[in-house]
C-alpha cells in the first residue's frame, strides 16, 4: 500500500465526513422569531407536477399567515418558514430526508410530502421520533390504520376518491330502469400505491352494489400510452370507466379517449384539474367526472383566505398559468393553517403539547372543516365529484353540495 493511496483514502474520508456534516447546516426548530417547518416534497420526478402545486400551496399559506400577523406563541409573534428538500418523487429519498430533517436540521414540525408512497415512507420515521406531521397529500387509508399518533391529514382518504362515482352510476342505472348490479365497470389504475388504494375503495363499492368488472388493468408507471386498454373498452362497451393515474394518467387518458372516440356513458378520472385537461383537449373532455378534495365553488369559509372563491382568486393572482386551482394546492395551504392554529392553541413549541393541540383541531377554513379522527384523518370534510360541463367544473355529487345536475349519458359535441 502506497503512501499516496493512503493519503488519498484519508483525504476521501476527510472530505466525506466534512461534506456530510456540512450537508446539514444545523438549524434549530425556532430561530429568532422564525418557526421552521420541514418538508420533503417532489420538485423532480414523476410526481413533481403536483409536488409543485403543493409547494405553491404551502408557500401561499405561509405568506398569508405571515402577512396577517404571524403566529403568536407565549405572547411573542413568530413568522413561519419552510425548509424544503427534494424527494425526487421516490420513497427511497423520503426516508433519508425525514432522517435528515429531524436529526441533522433539528426540525420538530413537518409538513407532509406529495403522494401516498412518499408519505408512507415518512410516517414511520416521524412516528418513531415523535415528531408531529400535518400532511395534505397522502390519502392512502393504510396511513390511518397503523395506529400512528403523530400524523394528521387534512384531506379525505383515498377510498373516497371515486366511490361517489360508483354510487352515481348506480343511481343513473336505477333512473334508466336497470338494476345497479347490471352496471358493467371498466377500471384502469396506475400501478402505484396511491392509485391502487383508490382502486381498493372502488372495489369495495362495486362489491356493495354487486356490479360487474369487465376490465381491470393496471397501467405502467411511465405511462405514455393506454390505447390497448381503451381498445378493450371500445369492444366491451362498459357503463362506467374509471381511471386513476395522477396527472400523467389523466392527460394520457383524455388524449386517447378523444383520439379513439371512446363512447362510454360515464367516465370518471382523478387529477383532471392538476393535468389541465380542459385547457389541453377542450370539448373532448366534456362530461368527465372528476373527484376533488376541494372546489372553489363550495361554500366553505375561514378566517385566513376568506371563502373558497377568494382563495381561488388569490392563488391565481399569485401564481401564473393556473386556469383552475388544483385542490392539491388548496389542501397544502390548509395544512399550514392547521399548524398555525395548533401553535397558538398549544401556546408552546413542545411537540407533545402540539400533538395534543393538533388532535383537538376543530376549525373552519376555506378548504372545509378540519377535525381529526383519533387515527389522524380528517373526518369533517367530504369528497365531492365535479363534472366538466362546457369547460367548467361543476359540482354534481354528493347531492348536499351539488350545484348542477349531472349530464348522463355523457355527450361530446361533434362526436
Amino acid at each position, binding site marked *: 500500500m502506497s503512501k499516496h493511496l493512503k493519503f488519498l483514502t484519508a483525504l476521501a474520508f476527510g472530505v466525506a465526513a466534512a461534506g456530510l456534516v456540512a450537508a446539514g447546516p444545523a438549524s434549530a426548530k425556532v430561530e429568532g422569531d422564525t418557526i421552521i417547518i420541514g418538508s420533503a416534497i417532489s420538485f423532480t420526478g414523476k410526481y413533481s407536477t403536483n409536488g409543485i402545486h403543493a409547494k405553491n400551496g404551502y408557500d401561499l399559506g405561509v405568506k398569508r399567515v405571515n402577512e396577517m400577523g404571524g403566529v403568536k406563541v407565549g405572547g411573542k409573534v413568530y413568522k413561519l418558514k419552510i425548509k424544503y428538500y427534494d424527494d425526487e418523487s421516490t420513497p427511497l429519498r423520503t426516508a433519508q430526508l425525514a432522517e435528515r430533517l429531524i436529526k*441533522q436540521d433539528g426540525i420538530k414540525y413537518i409538513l407532509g410530502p406529495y403522494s401516498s408512497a412518499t408519505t408512507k415512507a415518512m410516517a414511520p420515521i416521524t412516528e418513531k421520533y415523535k415528531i408531529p406531521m400535518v400532511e395534505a397529500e397522502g390519502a392512502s387509508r393504510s396511513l390511518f390504520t397503523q395506529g400512528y399518533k403523530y400524523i394528521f391529514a387534512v384531506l379525505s382518504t383515498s377510498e373516497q376518491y371515486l366511490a361517489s362515482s360508483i354510487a352515481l352510476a348506480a343511481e343513473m342505472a336505477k333512473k334508466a330502469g336497470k338494476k345497479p348490479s347490471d352496471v358493467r365497470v371498466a377500471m384502469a389504475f396506475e400501478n402505484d400505491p396511491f392509485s391502487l388504494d383508490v382502486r381498493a375503495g372502488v372495489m369495495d363499492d362495486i362489491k356493495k352494489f354487486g356490479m360487474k368488472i369487465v376490465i381491470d388493468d393496471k397501467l405502467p408507471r411511465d405511462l405514455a400510452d393506454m390505447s390497448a386498454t381503451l381498445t378493450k373498452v371500445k369492444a366491451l362497451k362498459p357503463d362506467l370507466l374509471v381511471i386513476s393515474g395522477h396527472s400523467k394518467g389523466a392527460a394520457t387518458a383524455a388524449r386517447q379517449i378523444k383520439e379513439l372516440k371512446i363512447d362510454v356513458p360515464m367516465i370518471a378520472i382523478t387529477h383532471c384539474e392538476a393535468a389541465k385537461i380542459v385547457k389541453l383537449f377542450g370539448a373532448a373532455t366534456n362530461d368527465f367526472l372528476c373527484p376533488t378534495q376541494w372546489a372553489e365553488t363550495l361554500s366553505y369559509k375561514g378566517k385566513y383566505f376568506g371563502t373558497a372563491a377568494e382563495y381561488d382568486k388569490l392563488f391565481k393572482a399569485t401564481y401564473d398559468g393556473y386556469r383552475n386551482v388544483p385542490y392539491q394546492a388548496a389542501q397544502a395551504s390548509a395544512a399550514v393553517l392547521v399548524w398555525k392554529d395548533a401553535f397558538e392553541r398549544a401556546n408552546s413549541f413542545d411537540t407533545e403539547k402540539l400533538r395534543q393541540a393538533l388532535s383537538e383541531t376543530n376549525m373552519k377554513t376555506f378548504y372545509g372543516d378540519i377535525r381529526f379522527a383519533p387515527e389522524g384523518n380528517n373526518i369533517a370534510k367530504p369528497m365531492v365529484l365535479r363534472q366538466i360541463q362546457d369547460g367548467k367544473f361543476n359540482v354534481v355529487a354528493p347531492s348536499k353540495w351539488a350545484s348542477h345536475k349531472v349530464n348522463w349519458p355523457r355527450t361530446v359535441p361533434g362526436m
Partner: protein
Amino acid sequence: MNTRLRRTLPYAGLLIAGIAAPFLFPDYTFQFTVLWVMILFALTWDILGGQMGYNSLGNIAFFGVGMYICAVVQIGLYYDVAQYTASYGAVKVEFTADQYFTGLAVGLIAAGLGAMVFSIILGWVVFGLRGPYFAIGTLGVALSAGELTGAWDYVGGGGGIALPIYPGEPDDRSLFFYVLSFTLTIILFFLLRWIYLGRFGLAANAIRDDEEKAEGMGIHTMRYKTVGWAIAAFFLGISGALFGNMIGFIEPLEVAFPTVTFGLFMVVMCLLGGRGTLWGPVIGATLFHTFKEVTWIYLLGWQWVALGALIVVSVVFFQQGIVGWVKEKWPEKFGIAVDDRALAETDPDLDEAPSQRLRRQTEAAQ
C-alpha cells in the same frame, strides 16, 4: 516493520473511521449507513465489472430480489403474505420484538442465499453474452424483474409492502442498521482483498484480458464468473434486505429495482474511483455519495444537472479513475516497474476482440 505498519494503516483507518463515525456524528448515522451501502454497491460491481471485464448493468436485480425475499420471509413467518399485501398495508399487524428479530435474521440469510441462487441461474443464461450485449442483456433482466414484481399481486404489486417496524427506540434503530451495513461491507471488503490476492484474482484478470486464451490455459472461466457473480449477489441481496428494512416501505420500481439510479450509480462510482482495484470503489463511492448529498443541499433544483455533469466529466475526462490515475502517476509506489496494466485498463478494444470488431464494422457497413 515500518512497511508492514504502512501497509496495514489504511485498513485500520477504514475500520476506525467506520466504528467512530456514528459516535462522532450521531445525527448523521443514517447518511453513513447509506454510504456503506454505496461502498458495498461499488465493491460488488467491481468483482465482475472491474476484475473480469464483464460489465453488468443489472446487478441491482439482486438487491431487489434480496429485498423482496426478506420482506416475504419476515411477514410470512407470522402472517399470510397474500392477505397482508392485498389490503396494501391497511391491516395492522403487530410484530413483537422477538418476532421482529427472528424474522429479520432469517430474512437476511434467505435474502443472501436467494439472490445467490438467482445469480447462478441467471449467470448460466447470460454469461454467453459478450461486450455490449452482456451489459444490455443484464439491464433488460433488471428492468423486467422490476416490472414483473410490479405485476405480481402476491407481493403487493405496484402497491408495495410496508415492512414490520423496528421495536426499539429510533436512535437504536439507526445504530442497529448502521452496525449491520458496516459489518457487511467490511466483511465483503476483506473477503475481496483475500480472494483478489489469490488464485481467484489472477484468474479473474486473465478472463478480463483475454477470455479465450484464459480458457485455453485451462482456467474454468465459467466457474470463476459464476463464483464472482454469486459473491456479488449474496452481498447485494443482504444489503437489499437491510435497505428495505431501513426505508420501512418497499415497492418494486423505485425502492427495490431502481435500475436507472442505483443500478447505474454503482458503475459510475466504480469508474470514478478506478475499476479493477480494491480501493477504487471505496474511494469512488465515498466521493460520489458526498457530492450527491452536498449538491442536494446547496444546489436544490439543479442537483441532478450537477450529478449528470459529474458523470459526464468523470467518465469522459477521467477515464482511469482516481486510483488508476495515481497508479499511472507514481507507478513505482505500487511496486510496478514497467507494467502494462494501467495501459490495458484504458485499452479501447478491451471489450471486443479485434476480430469481433472487424466483423461488427463490416456488418455495419452492409
